[in-house]
């Protein structure tokens, strides 16, 4: 048995070598298609991470008008205390928020000089009982007298999700087309391989080699093409992940907000990248296996 396995492997590699151009084309399309799939998965995972990260202990900020009257502020404060949507709130008065402003924009004195203590809006920073209620809080308070605006990071997440889901859809669509292309190319390669070995195959059938004995080297060939493509694609996906990581790190350094950027959560962890890599490699083997199996069924049957 070991004898025939080593034989099958040897045959497979000889075939791959003989069919080099076709094999190369097949492998390249597998790389492109699976890289696309991998990138789409990476982005999807990133967004999922960001959503989880930001909806944890997420708060809303109610920005009051700078000239809001005391009664307006007190009214909002009372309502917030009584609301079941809100767990707790922290009020930043004019000087608190002016200090925060000074800290956040320490390197941009122009911004700071545009405000005085009195013209800096006061802020209620609130923790929600349930992070999903942010929209409800927004609707309830943004039109209250004295309220300038209600801000919650969920908005950003929603927009981000929308953009990335469209992006993902496009990527997955393209990936699907490319997967079909790789299937076809692997099918063609295996057909060529069968054709170039038709004499051997005819003799094998004649002397009573079993169907599987004849088929396996061709199927292995397709699977190995798929696997080579998939391994390279996963390496590309790992590379993409670290490039994204670096990009985000750099923007954070450049950023001025002092708060963790929403972006920083959008990079999938390396653990997740490994899982994506495994998914890609398995899909590569499956694509190769299917493409070659169909060719073998069409062109090798007794």
């Amino acid at each position, binding site marked *: 048995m070991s004898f025939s396995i080593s034989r099958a492997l040897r045959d497979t590699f000889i075939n791959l070598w003989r069919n080099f151009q076709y094999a190369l084309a097949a492998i390249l399309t597998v790389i492109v298609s699976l890289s696309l799939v991998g990138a789409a998965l990476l982005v999807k995972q990133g967004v999922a991470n960001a959503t989880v990260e930001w909806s944890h202990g997420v708060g809303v900020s109610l920005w009051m008008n700078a000239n809001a009257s005391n009664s307006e502020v007190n009214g909002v404060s009372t309502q917030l205390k009584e609301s079941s949507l809100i767990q707790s709130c922290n009020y930043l008065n004019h000087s608190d928020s002016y200090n925060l402003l000074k800290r956040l924009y320490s390197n941009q004195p122009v911004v700071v000089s545009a405000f005085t203590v009195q013209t800096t809006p006061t802020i209620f920073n609130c923790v929600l009982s349930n992070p999903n209620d942010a929209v409800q809080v927004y609707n309830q308070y943004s039109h209250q007298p004295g309220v300038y605006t209600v801000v919650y990071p969920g908005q950003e997440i929603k927009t981000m999700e929308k953009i990335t889901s469209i992006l993902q859809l496009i990527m997955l669509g393209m990936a699907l087309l490319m997967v079909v292309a790789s299937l076809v190319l692997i099918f063609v390669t295996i057909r060529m391989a069968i054709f170039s070995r038709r004499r051997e195959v*005819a*003799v094998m059938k004649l*002397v009573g080699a079993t169907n599987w004995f004849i088929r396996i080297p061709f199927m292995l060939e397709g699977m190995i093409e798929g696997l080579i493509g998939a391994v390279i694609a996963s390496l590309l996906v790992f590379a993409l992940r670290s490039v994204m990581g670096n990009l985000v790190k750099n923007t954070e350094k450049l950023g001025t907000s002092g708060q963790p950027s929403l972006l920083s959560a959008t990079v999938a962890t390396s653990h997740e990248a490994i899982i994506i890599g495994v998914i890609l490699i398995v899909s590569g083997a499956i694509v190769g296996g299917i493409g070659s199996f169909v060719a073998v069924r069409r062109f090798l049957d007794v």
Partner: protein
Amino acid sequence: MIKFDKVSKSYKTNRNKALNELSLEITKGEFVFLVGPSGSGKTTFLKLLLREEKPDSGRIWVGGKELSSMGSFKVPYYRRNLGCVFQDFRLLPNKTVHQNVAFALEVIGRSKHVIESKVSQSLEIVGLGNKANRLPNELSGGEQQRVAIARAFVNRPLILLADEPTGNLDPATSQGIMRILDKINRTETTIIMATHDVGIVNMMRRRVIQLDKGSLVRDQQRGIYGMEEPDTIEERLTGAVRAISVGTSENELIKGRKRLRRNSTPIKSIIAGFDEDTDDLD
């Protein structure tokens, strides 16, 4: 050993029956010539035995097994009992003589050890032990056909099927091939050989099964190619012309005449040579 029971076969693209209600039996160790004009169904007969084709109706038994009800996964194992030789040799051009013969055993999973001994035995039988490392294109047609026979015989099949094995060879070379087939036949291997080679059939005087348009028209022990018993070489040749002419197509007549021209001069010496040689074969 082999039994055909009212076997009919027609091909999809062809209205005429390639075989028509053919019934016959062949016992173990027989040497059978399958003759008949072109298109009479000889190759079809062999393909049915190989289970490359299935009959439309009727049954075929080989060694107690019925072929059309045999599961397709069993077919490879069944074929290991058969050896096949063709007019065009069908050797693998990039493998040496030894590798070509060994290939037949490798692909059915025989061990290296078994392969080594069986291949050299088989090459000795066909007299090519000294050319084991040549490539097919470094051999004459006759030698290539001997390699093909060595490959067909290497697994010691019960039955050897040969479809015009001498069709591409000159008479002297053909005679050498027949000597080897005769030697193999004496190991109790059944041989069924489709042929147009008048000289050979008439020399060997073995069982002759003649087909015409798919039907059995003659089954004769110690038969000759044509219908009648010839007495002299001249008569044999006339018989040959007639037999060949059973195929009515002009093409076939031309082929027949050519064959006749080829055979006419050396036929005496072939017969003489053959009779001399037959005794020291084993």
